[in-house]
């Protein structure tokens, strides 16, 4: 929290985010990062759910590092929003659900690399996908769709105008 406040006071960041172009520019980058994530991790998830049978899981995984890049862009740009108006986010139910879903997606990534990816990349490219891989893919897609929905809804649940039963 102190870190968030300290970053919010960095002069040039503050000036950029309060300029007429700063906020929309960072929002645009945030959407590009999310498109990169959906286009790589999302497409990889769809492959594990059975779309694109014939493409091996391990070769499809080549897209994923670019998704990590998209994720990094979005953490960076997301932090910029957060530090510019912390109370608009921290007490915002849409933001809280978004962060929770990101946490679940993070745990799912750990589950995937610990238990699922090893066996899944060894199967032939047109074999049936193991249930554990389908499960991880479904959790991932659901979480990221939820993250996009909640992200878009943040603006509708700005405190203190909106009632929220756990805030």
């Amino acid at each position, binding site marked *: 929290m102190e870190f968030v406040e300290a970053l919010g006071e960095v002069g040039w960041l503050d000036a950029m985010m309060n300029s007429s172009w700063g906020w*929309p520019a960072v929002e645009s980058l945030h959407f590009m990062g999310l498109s990169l994530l959906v286009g790589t991790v999302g497409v990889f998830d769809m492959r594990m759910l059975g779309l694109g049978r014939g493409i091996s899981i391990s070769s499809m995984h080549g*897209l994923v590092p670019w998704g990590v890049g998209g994720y990094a862009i979005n953490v960076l740009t997301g932090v910029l929003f957060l530090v510019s108006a912390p109370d608009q986010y921290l007490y915002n139910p849409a933001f809280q659900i978004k962060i929770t879903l990101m946490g679940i997606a993070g745990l799912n990534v750990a589950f995937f690399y610990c238990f699922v990816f090893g066996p899944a990349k060894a199967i032939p490219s047109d074999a049936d996908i193991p249930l554990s891989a389908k499960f991880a893919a479904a959790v991932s897609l659901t979480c990221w*769709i939820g993250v996009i929905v909640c992200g878009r809804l943040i603006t509708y649940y700005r405190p203190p105008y909106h009632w929220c039963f756990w805030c």
Partner: protein
Amino acid sequence: MDYFIWLEETGFSIWMRESGPAFFSSLVLHSLSMAMVVGVNVAIALRILGVAGRVPVSAMARFTPVAYWGLAVVLISGGLLLVAYPTKALTNPVFYFKLLAVIAALFIARGWEKRLLRDAVYDTIRLPKKARLVAMASLVLWAAAITSGRLLAYTYNVLMASHLP
């Protein structure tokens, strides 16, 4: 302007503006479906540029239906947002820029589907320079569409024709 005023005063347009859920669910669906369309196009462009080189280029065609479903939702939700605030978008040059960027990017996507993704010759070899340039152009066009789309919320000249003096 008269036409905008008429449209803004139709019951449907008023409902789109004033019913909270109708408007924000259109916004949410527009974001989600845009991510589907751009996402699949980004995946194909990355593959053409050499990312995930062991995936056969032609196999990427399996994911295009996702982009088509996404596009249908983009058009419907975008149309609804347009009905809610027709003047806001149609009097803003940025809106036409976004439209052009999307049309050009879709034109590239159609070209991929009709040629590149049908041809297995490039499945295992590096793609020609021209194809890689087109893939770069697609990424740039989608980035332009996203940026101009986001700017629509900030750059409009007139929110509603019926509010003009």
